[in-house]
């Protein structure tokens, strides 16, 4: 039980921890107050328990695929918010904190939604074992191990991002956000395939022998890049499109911000008439 629990908890915790560490590091870089984290964690945890208790009813919706569609919608919403955050981060970085108004609130909503999504899965999994006293020690130990590894990776990742020279932090953080968002859209695609809303196809390749998804490294790559050992063509397409969309929008936002920055500098330097 312990190994299965570690894999499930690690998968959920790692995804949320990486998202929080990226946003928290950017928050520190842009000198935004980090109060939003505590608010979003509390709201997210409460929301996760609530959604966890309602998942039984949710799964009955839409001819029995309510949970898959609900989770996929949540993932896609989080992806969209992450795209928006990345654009605001870019603008704030080049044009000052004033141009990223509403950024802390947006980060709080995104993290709260991510915690609701991951936390409800954890709640569902753990609540199934509460009544099985003989399995509980293994499940609880696995939960602690998985959560410990997930949070530790998140904390070290946060300090790693803060340790980067400032000029690279934005690029690395936005690149990581693009990859995490693409990973989430890939998961949403998988959920929609499970719900038969998208066609099931034969996998393009299978790298499970080289890097099993169930290993710790596999889970880290799953959370960071959306690693899938045997992806179907539609999954690969969605993943690549998501990455390209994120990078394209970020590139445009950066170009616009930089041209505005240059314009403002020239205005400041212009002689008074």
């Amino acid at each position: 039980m312990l190994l299965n629990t570690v894999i499930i908890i690690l998968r959920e915790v790692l995804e949320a921890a990486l998202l929080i560490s990226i946003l928290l590091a950017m928050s520190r870089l842009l000198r935004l107050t980090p109060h939003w984290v505590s608010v979003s964690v509390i709201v997210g945890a409460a929301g996760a328990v609530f959604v966890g208790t309602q998942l039984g009813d949710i799964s009955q919706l839409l001819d029995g695929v309510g949970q898959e569609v609900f989770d996929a919608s949540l993932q896609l919403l989080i992806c969209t918010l992450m795209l928006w955050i990345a654009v605001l981060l870019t603008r704030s970085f080049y044009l000052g904190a004033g141009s990223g108004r509403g950024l802390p609130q947006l980060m709080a909503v995104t993290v709260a939604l991510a915690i609701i999504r991951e936390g409800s899965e954890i709640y569902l999994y753990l609540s199934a074992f509460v009544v099985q006293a003989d399995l509980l020690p293994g499940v609880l130990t696995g939960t602690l191990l998985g959560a410990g590894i997930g949070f530790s990776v998140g904390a070290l990742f946060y300090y790693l991002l803060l340790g980067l020279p400032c000029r690279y932090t934005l690029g690395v953080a936005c690149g990581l956000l693009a990859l995490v968002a693409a990973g989430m859209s890939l998961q949403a695609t998988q959920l929609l395939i499970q719900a038969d809303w998208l066609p099931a196809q034969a996998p393009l390749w299978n790298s499970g022998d080289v890097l099993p998804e169930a290993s710790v490294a596999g889970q880290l790559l799953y959370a960071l890049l959306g690693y899938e050992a045997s992806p179907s063509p539609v999954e690969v397409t969605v993943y690549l499109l998501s990455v390209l969309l994120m990078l394209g929008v970020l590139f445009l936002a950066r170009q616009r911000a930089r041209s505005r920055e240059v314009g403002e500098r020239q205005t400041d330097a212009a002689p008074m008439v």
Partner: protein
Amino acid sequence: MRSIRVFLLVALLSTITLINFLAALHGYRESMAAAQELFDRQLAATAQLVGKLPLERARGELADRGDIALQIWAEDGRSLLRSANTPEEPLARLEAGYREVNFGGYRWRVYTYFSPPVGRWIQVAERSDLRYRLAEKVVLESVLPTLIALPVAALLIWLVVGRGLSSLRDLAEALRSKRAEDLEPLELTGPPEELLPVVQSTNALLARLRASFERERRFSADAAHELRTPISSIQVHLYNLEQELEGAGWKDGNGALARLRGSIRRMAHLVEQMLVLFRTNPEHYPARFEQLDLHQVAREVIAECYQDISAKQQSIELQGERAMVEGDHFAVTLLMNNLLNNASKYTPEGGAIVMTTGVSEAGPFIQVEDSGPGIAPAEREKIFARFYRVGGDRHQHRVEGSGLGLSIVEHIAQLHRASLELGESRFASGLKVGVVFPKGHGESQGGVRD
């Protein structure tokens, strides 16, 4: 990084957790594999033991033990003996070795063994879930200490890091507790070699600062002092010149001598003010604090300045009550003198000045109000700057002054940790300057009202 201690705690604990937990996971996997191997060996030993038992006449069914199953087959495939929880057909193919099979609603680990001496197939099976749970229970006992040790490790890291940072804390405390005028070198007992360059650099900086202050002090004092003598000499020569010219019957028709006299007086005043400004500098003023009644000091200052004020036909009034402060008598007198002179200087002839003393919620205060032109709010912050004069040298009221009076007031206020407040006076126009002293044990109120 907001706190080195928090950073070290989180970074070290995360590293330890990550490495320990990954090691625990690896240990768990290995231990589980070893336990399964042990159970397999036990299963094989059981099968071999059964094979050696004299079971020639054994036929039929054994009682169901639940967690273990047994089947014995003849070489030709006939069932000789089986436990009640097994199906009638063989549990697995009759080939020697281990297999995983499902029956009776559970998954079983089956060992098939052929006993050559008796020519029988023995199949012994154990429930996989029970084997797994038993193994996990044993292995968890070795993983649990890793988890339990984590809070202990966190506490120890917190304490050890705190101890390691104590020198840094001592340095910060030494710097924080230093008074602004204290430029003596830092004295830390046995600073660690990592902090030694910081302490040495700080002490070198303090020494340079001390030398620089000393140079400035000497220059200001010497310059002002050296200027006094020639100015006095010029005043004497001017007086002699006036006498000689008067004796020779020359009249100062265009007022050149009077203007010269005024200029020399202004220069003398400026030099005196510079000396006072230097002397009242909080960094080197030798203050002697004592219990002072602001009301009483104000009364003395008014008496001293009354002649000049009445010469301008200005009215002066002292209001309020007794207000006790810990202060230097000379400095507080000088402060009030400057405030009153300033008010008189900028108030037109026939104007009014009111001094008030008392104790407000903020502390004991002295306040001077005049009916002069006042100061625009935008200019109020600037008037404490040295040599700053409202309206510049071309002041519309043609008031003489050095621009140092309020700088001296500010120095004395700093010396007493008092705050200065500027506002509009109670008159139609005019300035209100208030000095609020900090609340102290010396304050008390009286009921004297003038």
